């Protein structure tokens, strides 16, 4: 299936925009002004963009600790995200949540969480609400391969399946939980997408570095969920380039090799999508450069706004308590 040209271009552009935002923030992080544990998604953009683009504006998404790409791909406000990282009053969580608690309800980004697997259940609750009201909206939840080892994974899949709820589970399998590889955490031969079928939840394994494949799978999964068939599970294989938390490269720290990282960088989702579009004549090198410039300007502007914004007033420390 060939995707419409405008969709292909949008998918590439959105990945480029997110990459630009995160690489710029990673460059600035050592300045020490973003005092919040920050988990960059660099290398994993295709999953966020493929799924985020397949959803409707009034669908909702939930995420985990590595949430920047999910937030931006669903339409979360960039200025609010950057200000949140800088701990400013104008941040999307008012400087109370930080990098792992991004949210923008107006864009359908409801919550991100630093507790593994926590938002799987919450997304399922929003799906329950949609089903009770018969509104045809769906909820999606992003999480990693580590989260499926939590008890809440089992509880949530069982509940979503028995209640046939319109929820899309998106597992970004990047092979590591912090620094621990899959093979010491899950029995040999485990296939996550097969495991979920034992809950009667249909699933699909997708190349998570192929944004067009993710998008197509997400469109089908969303259609399934929206039509009342129940939940759907996507396992997307991908790879985190930078360190688990923080802006640096960490292939010299012993838990993975530079060779492994380089192999995945060679499969860069953005480079692949750009090549596809160039080969098809849907864009030119000059256009790619122009887009890069636009995104860089947008990101620089967001950073300037965030830096200039005030910190929350200390007298408002208790705001939001009761």
């Amino acid at each position, binding site marked *: 299936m060939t995707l419409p040209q405008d969709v292909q271009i949008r998918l590439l552009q959105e990945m480029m925009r997110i990459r630009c935002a995160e690489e710029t923030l990673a460059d600035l992080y050592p300045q020490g002004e973003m005092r919040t544990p920050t988990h960059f998604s660099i290398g994993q953009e295709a999953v966020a963009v493929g799924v985020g683009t397949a959803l409707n504006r009034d669908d*909702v998404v*939930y995420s985990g600790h590595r949430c920047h790409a999910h937030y931006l791909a669903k339409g979360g406000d960039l200025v609010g995200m950057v200000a949140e990282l800088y701990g400013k009053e104008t*941040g*999307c*969580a*008012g400087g*109370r*949540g930080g990098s792992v*608690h991004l*949210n923008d*309800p107006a864009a359908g980004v*409801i*919550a991100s*969480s630093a*507790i593994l697997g*926590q*938002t*799987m*259940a*919450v*997304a*399922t*609750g*929003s*799906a*329950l*609400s*949609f089903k*009770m009201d018969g509104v045809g909206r769906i*909820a999606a939840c992003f999480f990693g391969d580590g989260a499926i080892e939590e*008890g*809440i994974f089992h*509880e*949530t899949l*069982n*509940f979503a399946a*028995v209640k046939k709820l319109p929820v899309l589970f998106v597992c970004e399998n990047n092979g590591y939980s912090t620094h621990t590889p899959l093979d010491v955490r899950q029995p040999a031969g485990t296939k996550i997408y097969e495991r979920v079928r034992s809950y009667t939840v249909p699933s699909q394994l997708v190349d998570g570095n192929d944004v067009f494949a993710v998008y197509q799978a997400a469109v089908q999964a969303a259609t399934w969920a929206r039509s009342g068939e129940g939940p759907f599970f996507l396992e997307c294989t991908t790879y985190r380039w930078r360190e688990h938390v923080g802006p640096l490269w960490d292939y010299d720290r012993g838990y993975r090799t530079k060779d492994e990282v380089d192999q995945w960088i060679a499969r860069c989702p953005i480079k692949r999508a750009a090549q596809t579009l160039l080969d098809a004549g849907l864009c030119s090198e000059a256009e790619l450069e122009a887009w890069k410039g636009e995104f860089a300007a947008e990101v620089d502007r967001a950073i300037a706004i965030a830096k200039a914004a005030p910190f929350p007033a200390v007298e408002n420390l208790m*705001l*939001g*308590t*009761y």
Partner: protein
Amino acid sequence: MRILKYHQAISEALVQCMEADPDIFIAGIGVDDFKGVFGTTLEAYQRFGSKRVFDIPNCENAFTGVAIGAAVMGKRPVVVHPRNDFMFLCMDQIFNLAAKWRYMFGNKSGVPVVFRGIVGRGWGQGATHSQSLQAVFSHFPGLHVATPASAADAKGLLVSALRGSTPVVLLENRAVYELEEDVPEEPFEIPFGKGKIVRPGKDITIVGASLMAYEAERAANVLAAQGIDAEVIDPRSIRPLDEAIILESIKKTGHLVVADTNWARYGFSAEVAAVAAEKGWNDLKAPIRRVTPPDCPAPVSRPLEEAFHPSPATIAQACLEVLKKRGDPRHDVEDVQASFAGPY
């Protein structure tokens, strides 16, 4: 006004609020079965059916998250736990998410989920079915926690919970479920953080919530027969805590005993004692005393169980000691749940 039992008052509050607000639903293990959680959800199920009163798989933690996710979309879930001990399984969702949501996500919206947990007592329910978790839930900012003692208070606090924007934990002691009193027919609100004087007095203040409000009242009657006029304060909600009503009473009596169904260490009784020591020190004429279960899990065997729980006698004895008076704590006064004959 008419007389209602405690469980009838809860049922009435649920039904009236569900009539007024179509977003309210009740979920939990067995809420739609023939027992209806000790009768509290029977009428709601009959009236509103399985769309709004439904059973769930055994998934306390995930379902707490489900309730939060539904509440964020505008629903008002009531999650029922036949024993509050089961809520240990959902501490992550309650503390790390429900309680923190409003603050942590930038003060945009709250998650008005009502968690009902029933505290077991008597008939040997033992170590994991007769704990009383008000101190645990009240430690964390972001929740309202109430332990209504009477039928009217249960109705009023539940109505407040179902109209508010805050996650609420309501702990209902099984031992008071059959007690009855006048309850207003219309839905009415009792605000969180507002205690009441159960029995006015001038010699000593006894603070006791939930079941302990009754036991304190019985202790006060024992003391009255010996010329001691005790004031009994029921704070009704544990968080926020009505500090003013406690401090006012101490100002009058100069003596304080706190009775609690929860352990003394780091417990509700410790909090009340701390409030009195920090803010009412100059009014205290004697050291504060706490009457609580001893520092061991709840036992099963009848004599051990009776020794474990605070009673009118142990409360009266503590009052006599604080007042440095000799008297009879009257061990023959039966405690409130004496008629409870199980099985659950």
